[in-house]
């Protein structure tokens, strides 16, 4: 058992930022907006957080800065797609490019040193020593916040009127509008929320996990987060499952390498991706397991003047 704890802890640590980013995107997609700019938003959030601690700000301030940066990036996307009716796929990709470039450009002066402040681990006294689930109780404040966000998002989406309204907007904006819901306004809120969450994920990478800034720090994890939303069939708790599965299988592949198992690291490296596909197929093939259709209006622009 002791051998697996580091594996579990490692998987959880990898999953936390993915959960934040995926939750944010999930809410946006539930409102019908497909934002492919997650990677760009995470990067600007990461830079904002790192720059804040680098100039002496505390981690809380850094977290706030990251969220603001993510919101700003998401706002650009929101204006393009929700007000100016631009194609969501193209706008999201443009945001990724812009976010990558802006963060790389502005971040040039922040390379080469360790973050002066970080999020300390806050282990829960009795529970953190337990085998297997112990690592779940030795997280830092962002880790616990991730778990809280999972619960909050699930509760919001499925047990509140506002959540119902949001989901209605994602299923059929025309009907929602006829019922008096402010479709565009709700979508704006959802997209900005997605930006804030992506910013938090970026903050986690820059200040909590890697404690440094470098161009392209997130190395493609924004795309994994997008994939996780689909994998989770747009249900919050399943993003955590997907993130753990992904991070866990990656860790397992590395573990097998270090343990001397003679399988090509390339084959082992493909396991997380194959595992995700297999799990997705298993989940999608049986309709009883869960309702897995995408929000019906996902990706389609909606113009309130129509």
């Amino acid at each position: 058992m002791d051998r697996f704890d580091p594996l579990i802890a490692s998987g959880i640590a990898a999953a936390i930022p993915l959960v934040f980013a995926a939750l944010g995107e999930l809410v946006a997609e539930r409102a019908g907006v497909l934002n492919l700019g997650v990677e760009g938003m995470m990067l600007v959030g990461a830079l904002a957080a790192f720059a804040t601690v680098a100039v002496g700000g505390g981690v809380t301030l850094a977290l706030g800065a990251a969220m603001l940066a993510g919101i700003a990036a998401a706002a650009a996307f929101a204006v393009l797609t929700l007000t100016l009716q631009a194609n969501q796929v193209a706008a999201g990709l443009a945001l990724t490019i812009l976010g990558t470039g802006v963060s790389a450009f502005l971040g040039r002066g922040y390379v080469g040193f360790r973050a002066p402040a970080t999020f300390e681990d806050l282990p829960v006294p009795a529970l953190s020593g337990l085998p297997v689930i112990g690592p779940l109780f030795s997280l830092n404040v962002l880790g616990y916040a991730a778990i809280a966000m999972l619960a909050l998002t699930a509760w919001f989406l499925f047990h509140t009127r506002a959540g119902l309204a949001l989901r209605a907007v994602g299923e059929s904006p025309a009907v929602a509008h006829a019922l008096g819901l402010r479709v565009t306004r709700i979508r704006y809120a959802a997209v900005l929320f997605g930006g804030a969450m992506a910013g938090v994920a970026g903050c986690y990478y820059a200040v909590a996990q890697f404690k440094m800034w470098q161009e392209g720090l997130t190395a493609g994890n924004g795309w994994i987060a997008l994939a996780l939303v689909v994998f989770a069939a747009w249900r919050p708790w399943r993003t955590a499952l997907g993130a753990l599965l992904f991070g866990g299988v990656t860790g397992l592949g590395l573990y097998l390498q270090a343990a001397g198992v003679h399988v090509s690291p390339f084959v082992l490296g493909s396991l997380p991706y194959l595992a995700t596909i297999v799990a997705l197929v298993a989940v999608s093939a049986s309709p009883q397991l869960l309702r897995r259709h995408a929000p019906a209006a996902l990706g389609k622009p909606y113009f309130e003047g129509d």
Partner: protein
Amino acid sequence: MKKIWRALTAATAAVAFTLCGTTLWGTAIAQQPLRIGFVYVGPVGDGGWTFAHDIGRKAMEAKLKGKVQTTYVESVPEGADAERVVRDLAAKGHQIVFTTSFGYMDQTLKAAKSFPKNFFYHATGFKSSSNVFIYNCRMYEPAYLAGIVAGHMSKRGTLGFVASFPIPEVVRNINAYTLGARSVNPKITTKVVWVSSWYDPAKERQAAETLIGQGADVLLQNTDSSAVLQTAQDKGVYAFGWDSDMTAYAPKAHLGSAIEVWGPYYTLVAESYLAGKPFKENIWWGMKEGMNDFVGLNPIVPPAALKQVAAKKAEIVAGKFHPFSGPIKGNDGTTRVPAGKTLSDKEIDSVNWYVEGVEGKVPGK
């Protein structure tokens, strides 16, 4: 005879150059600076491989103030784009172009054919031509020294290596690291994890965590981020920096950094060209020529270890010790290098086996 000719030519060149220089100085005409181009595979801010090259470029510029003008192009993908960039640099008047990654090899050769009057220098490759020359450094030397430190500092007798791809450049560093450690503790073993990327902080971190979880307490990497160092510090074990001095990232865990020092080579190539004798050799330099170094040694390393490292370093610099001198056994039990022999450069550049003490096999072999 050849030596006398060389000396004579050099002297004449020097005199001619000085005369030209003074004449021009006298007439106060600004001499066109030599334009030198650099093709980088990553951003200069990567704190690693490209960062080290850029330090070298800046050092050369500082040394040859006013006589050279450098241009660099960052993050050039190693596919079809690279050839275009090299051509563009040559076409825009850059007499010398340095391409700083082995993935630029064929592209440099192809572009060089169209610019026979320019000179191209390709790092870490193995193909050259009439105007393409190779340069490489011996990272395995500071890796060996790091191994010595690791041998002293490891309490659990297990080392870890976070590796990118199974190319000879990486395999020989793993071997050197292990050999150095075993010269201190003959029972030490090394575990290797391949992350299939040169830069992926998340994967590097997980790899480091995995190695530490399996008992490794001194880590070395050849990937580009500081994730391994940071993880080591978080978990209370040790690690080394790579490509540049990484003390700032993890002051408690950092034991030393194996670095490249490209400045003197760049300066030499530029000066040779300016002197009218373009540099036309393929070189593979190491600590002896100042192209590599092992720096940033942590004061917590015990004095006995520091002494041993210093002594070994002096031997390497003096050319008296080669990390791959026999007897060396492979980890499959065979004798790879008999006593009294040393691996040739060609063998070092194509190594595809592990030394005794490294666990597992080189992937793909």
